[in-house]
């Protein structure tokens, strides 16, 4: 099975809508590791996911506090969204202190920005999402690397038909 899939958005609004669509495929224990440079759209994508999970409070960059938690209404067993950011973390030992892995075991889903610096301590069922900027200013390409088929490939392509594979 092809476990790498790519999707394209062409505006901030589409990135938000794409995040909302992805949120509908998320289940407790799922950890999305967001990889991409400065301004790639990691927070914007997470804002869409949060909206899709019914979170009404404002989701901002978690760089300063490193982990932000948002209550979810229990849909599909999800009670919490963890929005983490390892931009300031120096090593895996410090990432471990954030206890993201333990929290994900307890009915949470996690979105971890710059999570590729220490994926081994994050725990959860991990899907890597590499975000690239395209040739147009607001164009973004999302490469989903779902090695363990957490998302179930068939489902993902059906749900994301709208964004097509680039």
């Amino acid at each position: 099975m092809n476990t790498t899939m790519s999707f394209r958005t062409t505006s901030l609004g589409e990135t938000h809508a794409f995040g909302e669509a992805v949120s509908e495929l998320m289940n407790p224990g799922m950890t999305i590791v967001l990889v991409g440079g400065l301004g790639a759209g990691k927070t914007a994508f997470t804002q869409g996911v949060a909206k899709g999970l019914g979170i009404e409070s404002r989701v901002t960059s978690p760089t300063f506090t490193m982990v932000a938690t948002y209550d979810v209404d229990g849909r599909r067993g999800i009670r919490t969204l963890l929005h983490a950011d390892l931009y300031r973390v120096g090593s895996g030992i410090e990432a471990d202190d954030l206890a993201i892995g333990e929290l994900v075991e307890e009915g949470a889903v996690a979105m971890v920005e710059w999570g590729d610096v220490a994926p081994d301590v994050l725990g959860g069922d991990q899907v890597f999402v590499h975000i690239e900027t395209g040739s147009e200013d607001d164009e973004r390409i999302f490469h989903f690397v779902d090695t363990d088929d957490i998302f179930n490939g068939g489902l993902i392509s059906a749900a994301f038909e709208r964004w097509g594979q680039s």
Partner: protein
Amino acid sequence: MTKEMILAIETSCDETAAAVVDEDLHVLSSVVSSQIDLHASFGGVVPEIAGRAHVELLEPVVQEALEQAGRSIRDPGVVAVAVTTGPGLVGSLLVGLSGAKAMAYAWGVPFLSINHLEGHLFAAQLESDSLVFPYVTLLVSGGHTMLIGVHGPGEYRLMGETIDDAAGEAYDKVARYLGLGYPGGPAIDKLAAQGDPTAFRFPRALPGENLDFSFSGVKTSVVRAVDRSPEINVADVAASFQAAVVDVLVAKSMQAVERIDATAIVLGGGVAANSLLRERTTTAALEHGVQCALPSLAMCTDNAAMIGAAGWHRFRVHGGDDFSIGANPSLVLEMERA
């Protein structure tokens, strides 16, 4: 008669700070031990390092603050101990909180739980007793960008805030991207003085009536500009980036002032140390005929004196807080949403 005093402690991020503030809000001592050098090589604050450094620094910093106020750990003579319980880095907050509780318990005085943001709102009052309510505080730092209408002590209305990155965070990230080091604010501020602020037209987000901020777009635009031309003049980029950020901060601050017919604009938070922001805010306040309160650089950045000022307010209203209160990294300041 000697005045009553509060000991205040602040360890929410990378500064270990203690201060003694008297009942008239006179700062008898304010000691800040910065870890900036420790963190500079990592390009930002490293929580584990911050927590450990606080453990080592807290006792000497408290001792120094008490001694400068003519007291000592054995004879503190304070009526309460105020401490920041959030928002901030949990490992850092816990060090100050545990220390404060231990001291308050040992001395038999109340312990006061203070919101770091409220401390910043009180900072201006320590240096300017001529401020008249209502005024607008632009609180702008690495973790926050907010416009707050201050209608009285403890009476706050949130008028606008960032929807993505804090202004200081954008500074730090752009500085790191440009290879200018940490902390990013002073590095960009310094370099910007040698650059042309009109060289690049970076976006001014969310124009119009909205008082919310967005700094993600300007950050992305800087990255794009640099990626497109590797030979770019970095000073021009710094100056143009700074112009874009400060334009928006000042324009929205003045809109907020007009909206509540405020008597003054007050700056707070680490970015309030930025030279262009101070200059432009001063000019804009003059044009609008309102007072401009620019706290000293020491009072803009994290310090414990402002926690002491907020502590006095809390002491008078609540007396003391329960010792079971814990650190809360995402503590929210109780505000009406305007």
